[in-house]
């Protein structure tokens, strides 16, 4: 363990503070009545896709990363090719 790591080992409180500030900034908007934008987008994007094709739930990867100033939503959908049966959802 290097000396820098050793000195920083005990002061975890600033990390806690920063994590809380980012988290609560997001949670407060939800409790305040407005929907969580990122969660809404995730739901609606999935609904749109389901309208046009049958997507296996396991073939959808969603990653969300909430940051202090920027949040990202990454939706990775495996679209079946025509051969394996691209068709409208029932």
């Amino acid at each position, binding site marked *: 363990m290097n000396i820098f790591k050793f000195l920083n080992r005990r002061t975890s*409180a600033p990390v*806690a*503070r920063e994590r809380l500030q980012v988290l609560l900034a997001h949670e407060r908007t939800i409790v305040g009545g407005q929907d969580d934008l990122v969660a809404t987008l995730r739901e609606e994007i999935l609904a749109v896709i389901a309208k046009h094709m049958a997507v296996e739930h396991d073939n959808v990867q969603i990653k969300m990363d909430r940051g202090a100033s920027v949040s990202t939503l990454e939706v990775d959908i495996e679209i079946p090719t025509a051969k394996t049966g691209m068709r409208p959802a029932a």
Partner: protein
Amino acid sequence: MAKVLVVTSGKGGVGKTTSTAALGAALAQNNQKVAVVDFDVGLRNLDLIMGAEQRVVFDLINVIKGDAKLSQALIRDKRIDTLSLLPASQTRDKDNLTEEGVARVISELREQFDWIICDSPAGIERGATLAMRHADVAVVVTNPEVSSIRDSDRIIGLLDAKTEKAEQGDRVEKHLLLTRYDTARAQRGEILKVDDVLDILSIPLLGIIPESPDVLRASNIGAPVTLGSPNSVAARAYLDAARRLSGEVIAPQEKRGLLSKLFTRRAA
């Protein structure tokens, strides 16, 4: 005029019941008429912390259902006669807590007492929302630890949205009670400092209760810490917090400049 105070936190195990007992006793020690009410239906513990577990005959649910009168269910403290306990039911479940029933009991208590202190169960379900429903004042009990702070923030949001006061466009007066605080560890950066917690939660500070063996001892013997060990640091912190609730301006026990500054800070 009577004040209804809810002691709440979201998270369990942070010291709600201990704080309810200590603040209730402290207010009663200052000659206020106090009723402490346990809302943790099914998991009551305030009776145990108050040392009245052998004296419970009727409970809150009995009063709500009309099986008993309020006066029959209230247990008067043997040490201070201005302090009474309304225990929760241990056998019924929380569905027996009705909105109208709670409203009726609270308004009846308002006629007899100066302070009605509602000890909220953990969580944000029925028991917790009904405990805060009629509150004029809220004491948010928080440990300097991430999950406790997150839950406190959630509770503050509910106090601002789901209480009777909030629905009437008024505000519940909110206070932060930081419990199990270890100054030495905070200095070393191992736990969040008072200032960090105040910055994040943005409500005024009512008191800092140090991590202390006296608090555990008090629960072992069934005496609120302000009665069991009145000269301990924890008891003095609770006694000061109670006086602040009554509107007095009190400097913190430690006459350090930094700490008194924290107490004069208002919410951002």
